[in-house]
């Protein structure tokens, strides 16, 4: 095994000189600028939704793409952070920056507990355990009084960031969410490209060898899991701030599956893949909302097609094409 097919493409592309440090810098610069200009042309709430899910998927990819751990319960972090942020903003009247912080901290702590238990098993069991704990949290969210049960939390106030930026207007809110996304994306990027990230990759490629080289594999897995959970929480809290509600949907196992789909579709183990996948899936959700139950069928079909025929993902395929038709 040499990792998911997406990452093999990325490696080949680097070897073939398609990805160079200069091009990478140029690409990121363009991406940042496009992100700054985009709300002038596209509906900001849609964009913010995409950004939140892109951050969520990037955080998830840190586990699946780079550590080789399939978590099937990441909705637990997205959902609970949304509830916590919503609650402290609405019931306790905290300012938005503390709301985001509270959501992130709670998701991080949950990551320590769930991750600490789940890494005791590997492979397929890891997926089942994370799914189980996420379901447990879902049931708690249904029962606990502060979550509002089936109705969820509605009408979460956005407030004023640091007492300066009024978040009730769409553009300031967009740029704050964009900054949050870039911050989270940067954390993932730095983690992947640090010595720590290389150890994670070695665990994915060959865990026994990493162990025999003296790395405390469980510790690395746990730290990766906690970073991923925390950033998923940041995404969930931001989403609650943007949409002004937190509901059971974000804690449901469908959401855990959706983030897997985003990562798979964009290209697992590639830096940009999850964000591209998030854009596609959120757009799909948006435009298909009128067709009712067919959304589930279509999402499922995309899933099946992705697994059977499209394992490199969009970014992986693009790199593959670029290698065969060099520009």
């Amino acid at each position, binding site marked *: 095994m040499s990792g998911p097919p997406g990452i093999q493409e990325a490696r080949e592309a680097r070897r073939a000189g398609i990805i160079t440090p200069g091009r990478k810098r140029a690409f990121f610069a363009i991406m940042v600028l496009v992100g700054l200009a985009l709300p002038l042309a596209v509906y900001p709430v849609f964009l913010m939704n995409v950004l939140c899910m892109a951050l969520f998927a990037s955080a998830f990819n840190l586990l699946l793409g780079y550590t080789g751990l399939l978590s099937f319960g990441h909705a637990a972090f997205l959902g609970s952070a949304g509830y916590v942020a919503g609650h402290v903003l609405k019931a306790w009247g905290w300012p938005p920056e503390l709301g985001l912080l509270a959501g992130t901290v709670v998701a991080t702590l949950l990551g320590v507990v769930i991750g600490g238990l789940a890494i*005791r098993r590997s492979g*397929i069991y890891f997926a089942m355990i994370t799914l189980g704990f996420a379901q447990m949290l879902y049931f708690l969210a249904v029962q606990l009084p502060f979550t509002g049960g089936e109705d969820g939390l509605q009408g979460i106030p956005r407030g004023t960031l640091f007492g300066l930026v009024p978040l009730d207007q769409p553009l300031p809110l967009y740029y704050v969410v964009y900054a949050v996304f870039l911050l989270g994306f940067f954390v993932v990027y730095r983690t992947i490209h640090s010595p720590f990230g290389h150890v994670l990759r070695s665990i994915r490629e060959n865990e026994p060898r990493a162990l025999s080289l003296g790395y405390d594999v469980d510790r690395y897995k746990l730290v990766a899991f906690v970073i991923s959970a925390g950033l998923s929480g940041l995404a969930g809290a931001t989403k609650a701030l943007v949409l002004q509600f937190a509901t059971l949907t974000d804690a449901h196992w469908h959401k855990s599956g959706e983030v897997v789909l985003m990562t798979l579709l964009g290209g697992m183990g590639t830096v940009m893949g999850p964000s591209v996948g998030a854009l596609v899936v959120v757009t799909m959700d948006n435009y298909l909302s009128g067709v009712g139950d067919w959304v589930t069928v279509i999402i499922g079909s995309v899933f099946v097609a992705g697994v*059977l025929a499209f394992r490199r993902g969009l970014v992986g395929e693009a790199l593959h094409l670029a290698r065969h038709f060099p520009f």
Partner: protein
Amino acid sequence: MQALYGQLLVGLINGSFYALLSLGLAVIFGLVNVVNFAHGALYMTGAFVAWFGLSQLGIGYWPALLLSPLAVGVLGMVVERTMLRRLYQLDNLYGLLLTFGLTLIVEGLFHHAYGNSGNSYPVPEALQGGANLGFMFLPRYRAWVVLVSLVVCFGSWFVIERTRLGAYLRAGTENPRLLQAFGVNVPLMMTLTFGFGVALAGFAGVMAAPIYQVSPSMGSALIIVVFAVVVVGGMGSILGSIVTGLGLGLVEGLTKYFYPPAASTVVFAIMAVVLLLRPAGLFGREA
């Protein structure tokens, strides 16, 4: 006391379904090395086939008990032949993802066709009524479910552990290539095993139809609990998954009596404790 016995019976029935489903998962995982997420969806399909047969075609409970698992089994074999087979050389995570996608498709289709509400399925005439045991009332159908589940579970255990066919199956689990070198048609065996495993799910679905409402979402909630059961028991042993399934069902029933709010989460809490004390699972072999 009445209520306690009642909850214990409910627990025993839930446990029978956990046992049937986790048994099928374990058999499939053993030979085919796939964790079948669609197991719950196929259980639901089994219940729907029985319901559809009765309400549209006039096929009763007894033929459905045979036809429905057959239909689900054939569906499973088609899926195995056309899709799962392509993923065997890859990481087994892809098998889980594929069956997850199939779950969404199946559930979405049923939701579209039959809505969210449940459909009731009558208890067959021969099993209506019940017996007063003195300390509680025992509905005949429920006793039947527990009994038949036990018979099917132990029958499967006997076939797998004590017969020649079972020996092939276990050999395939240990070393499929070597078995193939001996002239056994392993790919066919895998198809049939997958078919048998999901047929068990279809069978459980028919059994469940008169007890629970037949609804499109009856499978997915169940399958996640069954996964937890599998983690607690470990997929290493057939007998282990049967005992764990029944045991956890009983614990759930007891929780429903003593502290109802925790009933839906107790299995996951037990999973956490088992992971702390015995990470390989109660009957697990791998570390």
